[in-house]
């Protein structure tokens, strides 16, 4: 696969930015500064990063409740994300949405989502708009193994093939939907096996290998752009944290987590790039330092920002 060194370093940087941002979010949550639910993506960063590395600014994504990674990978700025998570006026949604609803339509981010399985029809709809207006753009739908069992997901995939929509479905199979293990919630070993029912290509990839994700999704995205219709790519992965912050996670074995931590996509890619001579150890340190500074600045921005004024409660319900 043809890929520049710069692109690989950029992917490494994005994965690291996601990880660092979320670790800080988890600390802030533990400190009681973040209300509501926070779902972290730690361990799954290679998926959003590998997929979005193929996307253009004009392309669309739909995200999930576990959305921080998708947003950052699609170009979301962490200062506005941090402000949103803290409920501040300067956040992406003026504090009205919070972690579960961060969106920036101008960046092609049609939102994190609080409803499991809501994304696939929305992504198909975004793809319909792209096809209808001949935009040359495509849509990508990130969804979980849990979401793969919702009727909405099946309906969207069927319609996407019927209408040959330029959409790519990215299943993030982390083996659990809260406590529900895929061994009990699905009757086929792979979500991608279902692709044949919709007459679209279905591929399984190692979701902890950012290059594998980049390549497989690159093929599917190319296909969509050329008007050949939708694809389904299943990325096998694992979440490092509980379903939400505060989840005691009693339904998973500790050893299972340890095994998957061995396959952590970030150190894995780092070692690979250093071994290939793409990055030096020195460069790794520089990247980490820069990211740390950016995060501190983002947090300062968010902390210093005001909460929305109560007079803003009633605005944004309707378009005038």
């Amino acid at each position, binding site marked *: 696969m043809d890929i520049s060194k710069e692109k690989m370093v950029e992917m490494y940087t994005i994965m690291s930015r996601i990880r660092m941002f979320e670790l800080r979010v988890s600390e802030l949550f533990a400190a009681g500064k973040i209300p509501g*639910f926070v779902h972290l993506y730690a361990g799954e960063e290679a998926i959003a990063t590998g997929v979005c590395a193929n996307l253009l600014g004009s392309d669309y994504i739909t995200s999930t409740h576990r959305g921080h990674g998708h947003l950052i990978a699609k170009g979301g700025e962490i200062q506005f994300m941090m402000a949103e998570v803290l409920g501040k006026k300067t956040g992406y949604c003026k504090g009205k949405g919070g972690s579960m609803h961060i969106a920036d339509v101008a960046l092609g981010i049609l939102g994190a989502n609080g409803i499991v399985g809501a994304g696939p029809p929305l992504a198909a709809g975004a793809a319909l708009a792209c096809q209808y207006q001949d935009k040359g753009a495509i849509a990508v739908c990130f969804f979980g193994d849990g979401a793969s069992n919702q009727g909405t997901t099946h309906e969207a995939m069927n319609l996407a093939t019927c209408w040959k929509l330029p959409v790519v479905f990215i299943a993030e199979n982390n083996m659990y939907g809260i406590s529900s293990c895929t061994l009990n919630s699905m009757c086929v070993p792979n979500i991608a096996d279902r692709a044949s029912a919709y007459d679209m290509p279905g591929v399984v990839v190692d979701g902890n290998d950012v290059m594998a994700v980049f390549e497989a999704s690159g093929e599917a995205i190319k296909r969509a752009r050329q008007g050949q219709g939708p694809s389904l790519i299943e990325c096998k992965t694992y979440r490092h944290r509980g379903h939400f912050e505060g989840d005691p996670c009693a339904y998973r074995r500790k050893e299972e987590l340890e095994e998957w931590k061995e396959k952590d996509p970030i150190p894995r890619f780092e070692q690979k790039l250093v071994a290939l001579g793409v990055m030096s150890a020195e460069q790794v340190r520089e990247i980490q330092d820069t990211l740390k500074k950016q995060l501190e600045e983002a947090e300062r921005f968010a902390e210093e920002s005001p909460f929305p004024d109560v007079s803003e409660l009633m605005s944004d*319900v309707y378009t005038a």
Partner: protein
Amino acid sequence: MPTMTFAQALNDAHKLEMLRDPNIYVAGEDVGIYGGIFGVTGGLLDQFGPKRVRDTPITESAIVGTAVGAASCGLRPVVELMFVDFIGVALDQLFNQAAKMKYMFGGKAKIPMVLRATCGAGIGAAAQHSQCLEAWFMHVPGLKVVMPSTPADAKGLLISAIRDDNPVVFLEHKMLYALEGEVPAGDYTVPLGKADIKREGKDVTVIATAQAVHTALSAAEKLSADGISVEVLDPRTLNPLDEEAILESVRKTHRLVIIHEAVKFAGAGAEIAAMVAEKAFDRLDAPILRVAAPFVPVPFSPPLEKEYIPSEEKLIRAVKTVMES
């Protein structure tokens, strides 16, 4: 009487009924191994096993739809929607199937099922995890709608709901789960369709539901210091609505304020106010006032969410207004 939380009281009701009737099964997302996200179904899987306590995939339409189908064939499902906001995914199975089968089939079907769901704002869960949608369900002939405010009522009403031969939507406000109170041990029922006076008073009736009952009780305490005697009435069941209890209270106090957390426009309070206006207009000394959420989705940011939720201050102001006219 033992003291229990609201969540424990609901758990107790499940256990007692499941022991009594082998046709009851429980299903929903994370109700088994996890014991329910809010802990209501904890221990049921261990006690009753996977045949009767079923962890489902994320598939609300099928959770509700299988309950309707099974209920029509002799089982008594008690299924959980983790958040009432998710009813959108499953709505057809509830309002076109569960609610209408009996009528459409000329009475030759019954659907004895309970759909439990968490509702309400207060934890920063934002627009898709915080709604109060009871008015949606009230509007559908064929459904019963229950909304308890105390641990004892939660237990007694859930047992009645399970024994009822109709589809019952049972709404649990998430801010109540940790609330403690005395709960009668063993078999205990609170009849559906029967309101409860949570505090007696003579100057003004405040009708309140779920979490707002506690807002009303606290406001009533403060108002009594100003010499205003407030009667707090909790309908407990919104459909069937205990019209007689409401009218009796209003005939005594001649003033009515209604508080609920759902948006005011076309909310449960609108139905109650209209009913009172139709049936007891001449007994009212002041216009009926409603204190409820503004017409806006539930916001995330804490100051906005706080402003959204109908407050004690707003209720006190409304009570003083009706007292002045």
